């Protein structure tokens, strides 16, 4: 147990190091002279060669790959995400502001997803194969095939342009979160419904259930005490997957709805070639993602010691 | 000549083989007997190089064993063949690995010797009987003329009549080809009838190595005697003694 937990943490550390290295290598090998790009972003014109050299020295770009990597990772471990190469300001406060927009949006999206999928899955599995079940499966399949950006545009078209009920662009009022959250939530609902449905059906299939029925345990009690916990194990897995889905969705949704947040922060940073900002978002996402997956593995250990690690 | 020199194998903290030493020359047959869990399969794995030795050396003519390309006949005849391929392709693998794509004369000789109808070669492993599949297994083992052939419970998946037939064919082939053969079995009757020597394996150690006739008369250890008496009680040794 302790050995496998140690192994788990070791793997997490290796993965995080790998992500940092891969990100840095990507940006290091990005086309174009990064110093020139910084100069261009700062002064919006081609500056003289001395200025470019100065920028290069200042950004540590002349030191070579490994020194530059160390110069970036060293402070990063202490929580220092560095400064924007365009404005020169610290990245971290801007990142916090972005997260304060993205966090509520992701939570709202997840809530919408849960509010739709849990009742739908429970209703659908009342009569497996019945018309309600088939409708739920069909809806979930279609939902999984609709790209978030198109769904967002359709919702804007319907509720903001045609009906004029809801605001679409920006994040000025609380009502601005409704359409983005709905866009995210419908996508989450599609995948959650499928997984919950098959989870519930599988749990019902367990061979211990007939034994309970013979012993005269009421169906409702069986459902509550045995079926639901069994369906909960895949749900834990799903949260890891949904997190990926939410993060991807957030990028698209924030761009479509012109909302501030991590996604638009990332896309703007890429377009401005502000690499310290890009690195910051990537590292933050990776840490978040890896931490959640580590937690899931730990929960697995707690739920069922037989499961050493998840198999994908 | 196969030389196993003070070999020990550990899995985790458990020693599965301890201080094993034995040798086996061409045209000789050594039967390794013992209860299940005594380390018989591990011994085969170690000789083939599939299981690493923690201590000691295993050599064939003073070179690592894998250089002589030893062959193995498995307990479950069907699972030794890829179900998606014809038996002919599987059987030819040892030759293909040596760059020989076809050798009809050799195949003919072996088919004749092992009493295999040549058209069976074009079937799938599931389309022949277990006994036929085991003879195919022997055919594959022998096709590239290996100097050393290991048999891992070669008869235990077969019925009594087929067992006798197959055992006789193996002995006959050895007489013609002259390979050294190491047979792992729990069937003392088979061991006594066909092997030159019998090695008794117990809890990862060799209890004794005795010429098989002598073993049937007077085993050297108490454990050997227990094994022999149990075999007598089952009637397995009557045809030899």
């Amino acid at each position: 147990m302790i050995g496998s937990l140690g192994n788990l943490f070791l793997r997490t550390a290796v993965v995080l190091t790998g992500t940092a290295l891969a990100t840095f290598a990507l940006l290091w090998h990005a086309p174009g002279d990064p110093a020139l790009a910084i100069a261009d972003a700062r002064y919006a014109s081609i500056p003289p060669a001395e200025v470019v050299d100065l920028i290069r020295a200042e950004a540590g770009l002349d030191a070579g790959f490994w020194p530059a990597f160390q110069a970036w990772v060293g402070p990063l471990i202490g929580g220092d995400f560095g400064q924007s190469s365009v404005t020169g300001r610290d990245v971290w406060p801007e990142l916090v502001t972005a997260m304060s927009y993205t966090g509520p949006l992701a939570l709202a999206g997840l809530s919408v997803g849960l509010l739709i999928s849990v009742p739908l899955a429970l209703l659908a599995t009342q009569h497996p194969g019945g018309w309600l079940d088939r409708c739920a499966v069909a809806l979930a399949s279609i939902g999984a095939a609709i790209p978030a950006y198109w769904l967002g545009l359709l919702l804007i078209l319907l509720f903001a342009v045609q009906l004029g009920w809801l605001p679409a662009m920006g994040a000025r009022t609380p009502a601005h979160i409704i359409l983005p959250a709905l866009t995210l939530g419908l996508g989450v609902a599609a995948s959650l419904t499928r997984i919950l449905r098959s989870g519930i059906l599988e749990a019902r299939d367990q061979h211990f259930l007939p034994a309970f029925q013979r012993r005269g345990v009421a169906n409702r009690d069986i459902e509550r005490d045995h079926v639901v916990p069994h369906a909960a194990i895949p749900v834990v897995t799903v949260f890891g997957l949904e997190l990926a889905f939410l993060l991807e969705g957030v990028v698209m949704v924030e761009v479509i709805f012109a909302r501030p947040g991590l996604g638009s922060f990332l896309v703007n940073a890429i377009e401005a070639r502000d690499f310290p900002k890009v690195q910051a978002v990537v590292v933050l996402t990776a840490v978040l993602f890896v931490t959640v997956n580590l937690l899931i593995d730990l929960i697995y250990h707690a739920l069922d010691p037989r499961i050493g690690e998840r198999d994908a | 000549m196969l030389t196993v020199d003070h070999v020990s194998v550990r899995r985790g903290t458990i020693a599965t083989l301890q201080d094993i030493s034995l040798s086996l020359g061409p045209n000789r047959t050594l039967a390794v007997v013992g209860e299940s869990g005594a380390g018989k399969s591990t011994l085969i794995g170690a000789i083939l190089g599939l299981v690493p030795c923690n201590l000691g050396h295993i050599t064939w003519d003073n070179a690592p064993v894998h250089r002589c390309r030893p062959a193995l006949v498995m307990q479950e005849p069907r699972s030794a063949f890829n179900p998606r391929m014809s038996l002919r392709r599987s059987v030819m693998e040892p030759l293909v690995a040596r760059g020989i794509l076809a050798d009809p004369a050799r195949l003919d000789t072996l088919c004749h010797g092992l009493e295999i109808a040549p058209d069976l070669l074009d079937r799938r492993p599931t389309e022949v009987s277990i006994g036929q599949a085991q003879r195919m297994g022997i055919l594959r083992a022998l096709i590239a003329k290996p100097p050393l052939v290991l048999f891992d419970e070669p008869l235990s998946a077969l019925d009594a009549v087929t067992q006798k037939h197959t055992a006789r064919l193996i002995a006959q082939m050895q007489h013609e080809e002259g390979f050294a053969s190491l047979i792992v079995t729990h069937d003392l009757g088979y061991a006594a009838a066909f092997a030159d020597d019998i090695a008794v394996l117990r809890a990862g150690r060799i209890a004794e190595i005795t010429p098989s006739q002598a073993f049937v008369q007077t085993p050297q250890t108490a454990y050997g005697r227990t094994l022999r008496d149990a075999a007598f009680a089952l009637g397995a040794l009557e045809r030899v003694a």
Partner: protein
Amino acid sequence: MRSVGALIVIMLLLALIGPMLAPHDPTQINIPHRLSPPSPEWLLGTDALGRDILSRLLHGARWSLGLAFLISVIGLCIGTVAGLVAAQGGKLADWFVMRVTDTFLAFPDLVAAVVIAGVLGAGTGSLIFALTVTGWMRYARVARGIGLSLQNRGYVVQAKLAGLSPLVIARWHYLPSLLPSLAVVWTGMFARAILGISALGFLGFGVQPPMPEWGTMLLDARIHMRSTPLQMIWPGLAVVICVLAINLTGDALRDALAEQKDRKGTA
């Protein structure tokens, strides 16, 4: 397997023949007829530059489906090789390959693709690179899992003892057993690549104008949402239909495989 074969044929035909069926040149600018509503001349109307939307959709199939096919097949090759190296190459190779796989999985793949494509600069080359680099890990996991379960099979041990090279063993003894499961993964990754291409196109990091690609078309259509809302429907609908068809094929294939396994289990 047959359904997947049919799917491949249909999609490739669509990508090959689609452009031939187009009634107009998809890049022909026709300002006097810009933003026309659907009519017999322009069945689905025209866009802001007067280009025929139907023709652009049909030509777009080449980008969206053809590129997605290419990307998912490259990913299949990389992932299968990685998985087989992990399964066959011993403990050290396994550890190394699986940690690399974990590292790439430690990130939502579409976000990673956005970063890679964006940083490398917009264009088809970086689009393919970005979606391939982020799209091989699932194949690797599946190939390794099945590979490890095969390595102690009698016939694999026999092939090793016979002295066949790992490459030959992989080709004849591993690959045939891997294919059905890899086909299921492939359908998922094919659908994912279609979504990824159009998402990157929509963000402006993908296929560049004037090439008609469904995501890029959506980006153009978005600006004219108020005047010609229908223009926005078509490219999205094309993506949804393709992805849905692929996903349903994948589901059917997975169910068929599970049933086969069940039958083997009870027999």
